[in-house]
């Protein structure tokens, strides 16, 4: 059995660690690229959202590297994603890629259904080992997130253009190559040193922008045309409403670990505007917009794939949050387009707006 899974930003680092810890043979698909998208668009239904197309492309490319089993997340609506595992499996079968499919989703009748699926992947490893593996994967997710957060902070302040990206890539690969919890501890320290080594201009005025929206487009830089990096280059610090480790804690550990931001916080903040689960992360998007506004962020950027229903619901509520808290919000819809000019134009104008607004406020109060 050679297991593969779809890409979603740095998820591969955490999943690979988890599976390899249990001795599972893992095939990481090549990073999502133009080729991935082309394959996905060719075989995927036109009206599906971009995540489905990238998933498909990832699987086809992984098949070429010898993968024969897919691990995929499921769900039960209202977002279409819950059905994607089955759809993708059917499409792959039609075009001649024979895979075995394992869908991790909320069990229909009994929790044992989930355990059976995990058993299927892990073979005869003990549950203790499985728990250790999940822990290891989680620690990697946390380490990766810390590097990302550091990069968000230093990118707008870097003295040498591109220095952050170089540090980020090498720090990430250190975490990725750590093969045991001990090694990971050492890698984390070294990664921290690398990130701290980027020379900064501390005096530069920097705006703070909250990035929120649909999880896949938030976490996968290929799908959002590197929006985080571009905001950084334009001189603003980013915070993202979803990080990998937070997501794992919320959905796999059911919020067991305290001290992390959780979906509960976001949902309670959303309650004056939206008290209902609307699928995907629609409710969280509204809630985190409120939280960012309260925390004094200068602006918000919402990203989601074209036709994403939960985020369309959120988008229609956000103007109200924007007026009540006086925080500008920019919505960016992602699809197949790879031309970045449109996105950069909007971001640049948005940051101009935020800067002038801040200046205006400073003058008004001084």
């Amino acid at each position: 059995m050679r297991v593969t899974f779809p890409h979603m930003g740095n998820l591969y680092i955490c999943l690979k660690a988890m599976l390899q810890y249990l001795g599972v043979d893992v095939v990481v698909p090549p990073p999502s690229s133009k080729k991935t998208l082309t394959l996905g668009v060719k075989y995927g239904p036109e009206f599906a959202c971009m995540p489905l197309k990238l998933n498909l492309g990832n699987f086809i490319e992984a098949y070429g590297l010898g993968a024969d089993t897919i691990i995929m997340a499921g769900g039960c609506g209202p977002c279409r994603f819950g059905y994607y595992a089955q759809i993708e499996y059917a499409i792959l079968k039609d075009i001649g890629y024979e895979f075995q499919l394992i869908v991790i989703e909320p069990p229909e009748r009994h929790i044992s259904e989930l355990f059976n699926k995990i058993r299927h992947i892990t073979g005869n490893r003990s549950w203790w080992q499985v728990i250790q593996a999940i822990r290891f994967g989680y620690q990697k997710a946390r380490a990766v997130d810390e590097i990302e957060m550091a990069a968000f902070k230093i990118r707008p302040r870097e003295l040498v253009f591109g220095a952050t990206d170089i540090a980020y890539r090498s720090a990430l690969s250190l975490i990725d190559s750590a093969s045991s919890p001990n090694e990971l501890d050492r890698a984390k320290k070294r990664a921290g040193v690398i990130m701290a080594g980027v020379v900064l201009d501390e005096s530069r005025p920097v705006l703070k922008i909250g990035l929120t929206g649909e999880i896949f487009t938030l976490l996968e830089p290929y799908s959002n045309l590197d929006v985080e990096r571009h905001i950084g280059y334009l001189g603003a610090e980013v915070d993202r409403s979803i990080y990998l480790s937070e997501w794992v804690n919320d959905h796999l550990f059911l919020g067991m670990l305290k001290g992390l931001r959780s979906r509960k916080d976001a949902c309670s903040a959303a309650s004056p505007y939206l008290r209902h689960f609307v699928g995907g992360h629609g409710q969280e998007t509204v809630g985190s917009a409120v939280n960012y506004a309260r925390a004094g962020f200068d602006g918000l950027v919402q990203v989601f794939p074209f036709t994403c229903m939960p985020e369309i619901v959120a988008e229609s509520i956000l103007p109200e949050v924007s007026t009540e808290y006086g925080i500008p919000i920019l919505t960016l819809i992602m699809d197949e387009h790879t031309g970045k000019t449109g996105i950069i134009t909007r971001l640049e104008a948005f940051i101009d707006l935020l800067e002038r607004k801040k200046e205006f406020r400073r003058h008004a109060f001084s």
Partner: protein
Amino acid sequence: MKGYLGIDVGSVSTKIVFMDESGVIHEAIYLRTQGIPIATVQKGLTELKKRLPSGLKVRGVGTTGSGRYLAGIVVGADTVKNEITAHAVASSLQVPGVQTIIEIGGQDSKIIILRNGVVSDFAMNTVCAAGTGSFLDQQAARLNIPVEKFGEIALRSQSPVRIAGRCAVFAESDMIHKQQMGCGLSDILAGLCDALVRNYLNNVGKGKEILAPVVFQGGVAANAGMINAFKKALGLAIQVPPYFDVMGAVGAALLSRETVSRTGSSRFKGFGVTDTEFKTGSFECSGCSNLCEVVQLAEDGNIIARWGDRCGKWSNAFAEQEKIS
């Protein structure tokens, strides 16, 4: 005479203005980009030089529009700014106190909300180009009327027919259907204007508070039918500034004045750039699986800029402000 150049390289048209130090526009040139932005900018500059008195000094240059980086590198711009900021700056100067800017160009449409002279919100069409200049152009061509006459004919309508406005494809099929039913041309055109305004307000203007004074600019503001439809839909007076079709360029010139007052000198390469040979080319980088399309620009055989790479391997070799992505 001393002054500033503003260059707006849009998807459909390229606009160049010359503004003197007090902010008065002396010349404005409007050309079709026709897919060759560099040659169009060169052509425009040649034309501008002919029209302007000799002994003139360019104190600064600003570029804007979707081709702003390319144009900025070609001419040596002091400021390269997005079109939203440029339009807002120009409007505030021409119509003091403006609170809402409706801008409809060739491929995009935007709304800019200003309060107390500062941009407070904006939106740009993201996934739909229905209602932009290109679509009006195409429909005028299909009906065999010059696009300049479009507005005039639409104004003659007594009872506009209803045309679907959500999507250009729906709009066109609706227009054809009504035309085959025997509806008059002016009623169809007026109906189309209403539909496009409806689409604009729902799609681009959604959730925004539109307050007077409202300024309508961009190429489509030449269309009297569209002005009338906006008036009807908003119940507000619509102002069209004298240089409505070159406002982006006016804004770029104004912004360059701001920059040069700070930096002291201009980076303008001079009108000589019209004789320089610029060549663009692209290649696919095979350094990693991203397979980025890297574009490069050569000036008289020397490569002066590269962009399009995600990792910065190619673009980082050049000065920071000449970078595009």
